[in-house]
C-alpha cells in the first residue's frame, strides 16, 4: 500500500538513496531542499510522511516541524533525520512535534521499518 513521502534534505547524495529506498518500498516521493521549500511542498504534495533533515538552509528542521504542527498538520508523520547525534537535540526534536528521530548514519532497513511503523500506526 503506497504512501506519499516528502524527503527534505540539502545533500543530493543522501536524497538519491532515500528516494530509491522509498520508491522500492512502494511509496511515491517528492523532494525539498530547504525549509521554505518543505513548507510549500507539504501544502502542494500533501504527503503522509516527511523525512526531515535538521540542518537545512534558511529555516532549520526544528522550526519547519514546529511550523507544520502550528499550521494544523496534526496527522502528518514527521521523521527527523540529523547528523547531530546529541541527546539534547533528540529531546528537542520530539518536543517540537516530531514522531521519530533517526541519527545519521542510519541502517536503511531500520529506516524503512521506522517509516512503515509510523504509517501503520495511523491505520
Amino acid at each position, binding site marked *: 500500500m503506497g504512501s506519499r513521502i516528502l524527503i527534505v534534505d540539502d545533500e543530493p547524495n543522501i536524497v538519491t*538513496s532515500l528516494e530509491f*529506498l522509498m520508491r522500492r518500498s512502494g511509496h511515491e516521493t517528492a523532494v525539498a531542499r530547504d525549509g521554505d521549500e518543505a513548507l510549500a511542498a507539504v501544502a502542494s504534495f500533501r504527503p503522509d510522511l516527511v523525512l526531515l533533515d535538521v540542518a537545512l538552509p534558511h529555516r532549520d528542521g526544528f522550526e519547519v516541524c514546529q511550523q507544520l504542527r502550528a499550521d494544523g498538520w496534526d496527522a502528518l508523520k514527521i521523521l527527523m533525520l540529523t*547528523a547531530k547525534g546529541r541527546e539534547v537535540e533528540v529531546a528537542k526534536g520530539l518536543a517540537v512535534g516530531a514522531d521519530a528521530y533517526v541519527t545519521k548514519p542510519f541502517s536503511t532497513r531500520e529506516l524503512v521499518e521506522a517509516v512503515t511503523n509510523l504509517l501503520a500506526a495511523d491505520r
Partner: protein
Amino acid sequence: MTPGPRRFAAVLAALAGYVLAGVGLLGLGVYAGVDRETQDALAGALRSQAAFLVFGVGLLVAGLGVLVWRFLAVYVTPLRRLAADTRLIVTTNPGHRLDVARPRDLAALGAAVNELASRYQTARGVADARSAADRAELEEDRDRLAALMSDLAVGVLVCNLDGRILLHNAAARELLGAAGRSWVGLGRSIFGVLDRELIAHAVERIHGGADSVQTAAVAGADRLLRVRVAPVRGSGGYVLTLEDMTRRAEAGQRRDTALRALSEGTRAPLAAIRAAIENILDYPDMAPDERERFAEIIREETHRLSAHVERTIADSAGYLTDRWQLEDVRGADLLAAVARGVRSGGEVEASVTEPVTELWLEAETHRIAQAVADLVGRLGVARVALSVSPAGGHGALDLRWPDGHVDGKPEDTVRGWSAEARVAELLARHDGEAWAATDATGPYVRVLLRRSRAEPVTARAAATPTTSRPEFYDFDLFRVTAPGAWDARPLSDLAYTVFDTETTGLAPSEGDEIISIGAARIINGRLLHQELYEQLVDPGRSVPAASQRIHGITPAMLAGQPPIGDVLPDLARFADGSVLLGHNVAFDLKFLALKEAATGVRFDQPVLDTLLLSPVAHPDHQDHSLEAIAARLGVNILGRHTALGDALLTGEIFLRLIPVLAERGIVTLGQAREAARRTQQARIRY
C-alpha cells in the same frame, strides 16, 4: 622671634598698673603728711606741670614696655619653644636637638636637655634594636610567606566581609589589572575589579555551608578567569583564587568545535555511503545504471569523508587535551538562583517547585540565572513557575506561566534568545538546548543543561594563619567595617590618598594646567610603596621655562601623554573610598575643581592638609613648609618637586603628625578637620 601681642599687652598693663599704684600711694602718703599750705602748693605745682606728669608716666610705661618685651622675647618665648621641642624629642623625633644660644641660663638648660636627649636616644636605640631583633624573626616568616605568595602563578586575594582586600599577590594584581593599571590594593574593594553579583552569589553559597564555590568571571575586556571562593574560618572573610582560563577556555571551545565537526561532519557522508551500500546489497535486482550511480556516490562521499577528517585533525591539533570545568551545582540551588535573578527585576513573581530527587548539574549558576531571567523578561509573563527535573544525561529547567498570558509566541522568543551569541555560547558550553513547546499540562519553556558526572567533592579551603604584616597584606583590616561616619573614626584607622600635582604655574583660573600627578595610599597607618600612582599629563598649552626649572618637566616629556580629562577618572578611582591628603592641598584642589564641569569627576571625600595640621601640632614654630616640617619630624627628604616624591613626603609627615596631634587631644578625623579649619581662619586673619 616675637611674643604674642595679647600676652605682651596683658603683662605690660599689669606691671604699669602696679608701678603707678605704688607711685600714687607714695604721693598720697607724702601729700597727707605735710601741712595745708604745702598741700596747696603741691596741688598747684601738679596742676601747672600736668604735662610733665603725663610725660613722666608715659616714659615710665614705655620703659616698662621695653623691659617686658625683652623679657618675653629673651626668656618666655624661648622657654616655650624649648618645652615644645623637648616634647617633640620625646614623642616623635629623638634625633631632634634644641638650639638655644642666649640667654646663658637657658642655653645651659638647653644643653642639659640635649644631653638628656642624647642618652634617651641611645637608650631607645638599644631597646629598639632588641625589639627589632624580635621583629626580624617574625618578619622572616612574613617575608617567606610573601615570597611564596608572589611566586604563585595562581592569583590569591583575601577579603573581609565587606569585600575589602586584605591580601593580594602579584599574580592577582596582574590578572585583574586593566590596561596596564591594577586596582587591586590593600583596603580597596574587590567589587571594583570583579562583578559584585558574582561574588555576592558565591559568598552567599559559602555562608549557606558550601566549602568552596567555583565560578567563572570576566576581567577587563576579554579575560576569562576561573574564580574559586572559600571562607576564612571564623572571620566572615573569604579567599579568592584566580586562574586565567582565557587560553584554556579558548582551547576548550576549539576542542568542542573540533569534536562537533568530527562527529557531525562525518555523519552526513557516512549516512550517504551506508545507505548506498545497503541499497546495492539489499536490492541486487537494481538496474546497472542505478548500481553505477550508487557506486559513484560511495566513491565521492569516501573522498569527502577522508578530506574532512584530515582537515579537522589538522585544525584542532593541540587543543584536544584540556578540559574546561564548570561548577557543580545542586538543582535546587540553581532554581533558587534563577528565581532570585527573575525577582531582581522586580516585575515578575517567581515560584519554585523543589526537585523530588537530588539532582546535580554542571553549570555556571550565576550566568545561567542571568540568562534565564533575561528570557523570562522577554516572555513578558507576570508569574513564572520554575522546576527542575532529570532528563537522561541532562537536567531540564522548566518555566511555566500559570496565568496563561505571554507576550508573542514563546517559540519565537526562545529562538531569538538562544540565537544571541552570548546565550548560544553559554548553552554550547553547557551542552544545552532550549525550546518552547506545549505538553499535556500546557505551554512551557525548557532549558536543558548537562548533569554532573559524579557527585562533586569540594576541597576544604586552607586559611592562612598569620598575624604579621608585610606590605602585601593586612589582616587588621578584617575588623574594619564599611566607611561612613568618617568624622567619628580615629585618624590612625582611616584610608588616605595622599597626592600632589606639578603645574605650569600658580594661577589655575588664568589658564595654568596640571602636568603631573603623583599619589600614594595610606592604609592602617602605613604608607604603601607598592600602590603608587604617577602620571604625566598633556596640559594642552606651553610649559613656561620658569616652572620647568622647578619641576624639571619639559614639553617633550609631555608629548603623547593623556589629557587631564582622561587622567582624572583614573585618579578618582585610585582615591575612591579614602580621605584626600596633601600639603597646601587647597592649591591642588583648585585645579581639580576647575576641571569638574568638563570631566564630570568630583572629589567629594573629606580632605586634610598638612599645611594646616602642622601649626596645630607645633604652634610655636613659624615655618610650616614641607622641608621645615620634615626636618622637625625627622623625615628624610628625597625626590622633592616631583609630584610623587612630594606626595610620599607628605604622607610620611602626616603619619608622624598623628601621635603629636593625639597628644593635643586631636584623635578623630572630625577633630582634625575642625582644628585645621581654625588654623585656616587664623591664617586668613593675619
